[in-house]
């Protein structure tokens, strides 16, 4: 089991001005797609930056692809085999989609021109930007830029793929396309997917890790997390003030996520989102009423 682990973190702690972003986290990942969920400031991005070797932890051990990246040579060895899509990614002015991904390919040591260009075209086609390669990035939409950023992470079919909110700003149709790409990547690589989109995690991941205030609140199969919400999600004609979360659905009825059944309510099939809201408890207490 240990040999199959691509990523292993033991007692990893990271603080920003004394405030813990990660607090003694122990996690290990093997091939497949794992979803990282958590509220803003939970430590998801810090976690991914540490695994991407961009940020060093204050304490603890990080083992990636069978080695501890503690020397420049080992760092380079790990970086050759990982792809990383950061949460916030800007682009230098004047670059086309092809030019930018090509530049990143050079940084990833694709030195021979012809195979590099083939690879750049391949990843741009994967994210459905094959016909926009010569367009300047500044002229692309937010979703298209996000896909350019994803394309650079996919260069070389990395064994370890780290994606920080890859579908932000991407339209539903493209999101489905990206899910197909990521699902294929998950068949051969270890993919860590940080997102606020619980439906992406439900659609793609076998396993989910929920971080909250720098600690692991849940780590297990997605179905297990969903199962924790069984019998705690109700559809009713009115919002339930005692519920952890309540909102008006498109049908006009109110979805209440909580412990007790409101009067006249009927039990509903729980989703990952329901389970996530219940797990986070008071932190996620909200009453959102759609107009």
């Amino acid at each position, binding site marked *: 089991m240990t040999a199959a682990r691509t990523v292993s973190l033991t007692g990893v702690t990271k603080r920003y001005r004394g405030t813990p972003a990660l607090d003694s986290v122990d996690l290990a990942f093997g091939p497949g797609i794992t979803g990282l969920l958590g509220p803003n400031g939970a430590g998801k991005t810090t976690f991914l930056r540490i695994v991407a070797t*961009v940020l060093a932890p204050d304490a603890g051990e990080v083992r990636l692809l069978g080695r501890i990246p503690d020397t*420049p040579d080992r760092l380079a060895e790990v970086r050759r085999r990982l792809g990383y899509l950061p949460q916030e990614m*800007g682009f230098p002015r004047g670059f086309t989609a092809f030019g930018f991904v090509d530049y*990143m390919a050079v*940084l990833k040591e694709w030195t021979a021109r012809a195979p590099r260009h083939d690879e750049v075209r391949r990843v741009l086609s994967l994210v459905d930007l094959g016909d926009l390669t010569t367009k300047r990035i500044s002229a692309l939409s937010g979703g298209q830029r996000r896909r350019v950023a994803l394309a650079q992470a996919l260069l070389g079919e990395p064994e370890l793929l780290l994606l920080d909110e890859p579908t932000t700003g991407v339209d539903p149709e493209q999101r489905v396309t990206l899910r197909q790409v990521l699902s294929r990547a998950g068949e051969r690589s270890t993919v860590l997917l940080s997102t606020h989109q619980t439906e992406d995690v439900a659609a793609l991941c076998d396993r989910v890790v929920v971080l909250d205030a720098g600690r692991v609140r849940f780590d297990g199969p997605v179905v297990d997390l969903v199962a924790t919400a069984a019998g705690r999600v109700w559809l009713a004609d009115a919002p339930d003030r005692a519920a952890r979360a309540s909102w008006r659905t498109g049908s006009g009825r109110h979805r209440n996520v909580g412990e007790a059944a409101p009067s006249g309510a009927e039990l509903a099939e729980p989703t990952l989102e329901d389970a996530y809201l219940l797990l986070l408890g008071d932190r996620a207490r909200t009453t959102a009423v759609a107009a």
Partner: protein
Amino acid sequence: MTAVAGRRAAPAEATLRTLAWVEARRWARHPLFLLGCALLIWGAVGIWNNLDATFNEFRVAPAFCVGVLGALVGCQLTRSMSRSTDAVAAAPADGVLRTAALCLACLVPGAVGLLWVTWLYVAAMAMPTPQSALSTADQIAVLLSGVVASVGGPLFGVMVGRWTRFPGAGLVGAVVLIGWTILGNSSLIQPASRLNDLVRLNAPYAFWTSSDNDHSHIWVAGGSPWWHLAYVVLLCGLAATAAMVHEAVGARRSRLWRILAELAGLAVVALALAVAADPTRVPL
């Protein structure tokens, strides 16, 4: 595992060469660099008819048009990937290699400076220009300092881009270069002395003749043009090494600091030797 995933890592030299080539093309397409080249050509046409014995305008042209503007270009190109910092940082080509590639790309403005100086030298030989008090060997050193300035400004820009974070740092760097040169060369209006030569020659670009359009009271300043050339070459090395130090970690950072200290020591020696030459001004 696919053939793509099984790809072998390229040697660092190959990555450096490829990256330097990419950066060189970015440099050659940068609007400020193209503006500098255009200014150089326009300036050549404009001042050719006013050619005098000093050649001052010609010598300073590449230093200003390519060197000073190159400081802005260097800073911009160095910082251009800062918007993608995390993605770049997770790539195997580390910051030292990326900085080295940018430094190599500074050969593009250097090549323009060299072309200019070669053209000037050939043209001056062909034209009946007044004789200069500088020997032919010294003339070459003075002309070559224009080439070095066209590389040095861009290297200075790369260094500024690596070490500073505030907006407009490239512009501030360019102003510092101009100010340093003007302040240093202002000693030409002072009496001849080794101290005044030190003030003049510590600047990254030094004037060697008084400039006077009516061709009267023209003289050649003291000091050694060749040792000054060695000094400015060492300043280029200092800028490149200082830029790389910023990105280095561990033992490599210590090694680069040591090289930086050695280059600084050699620069001081070269400057001392440039100033040690006879400070007497020779009339034309």
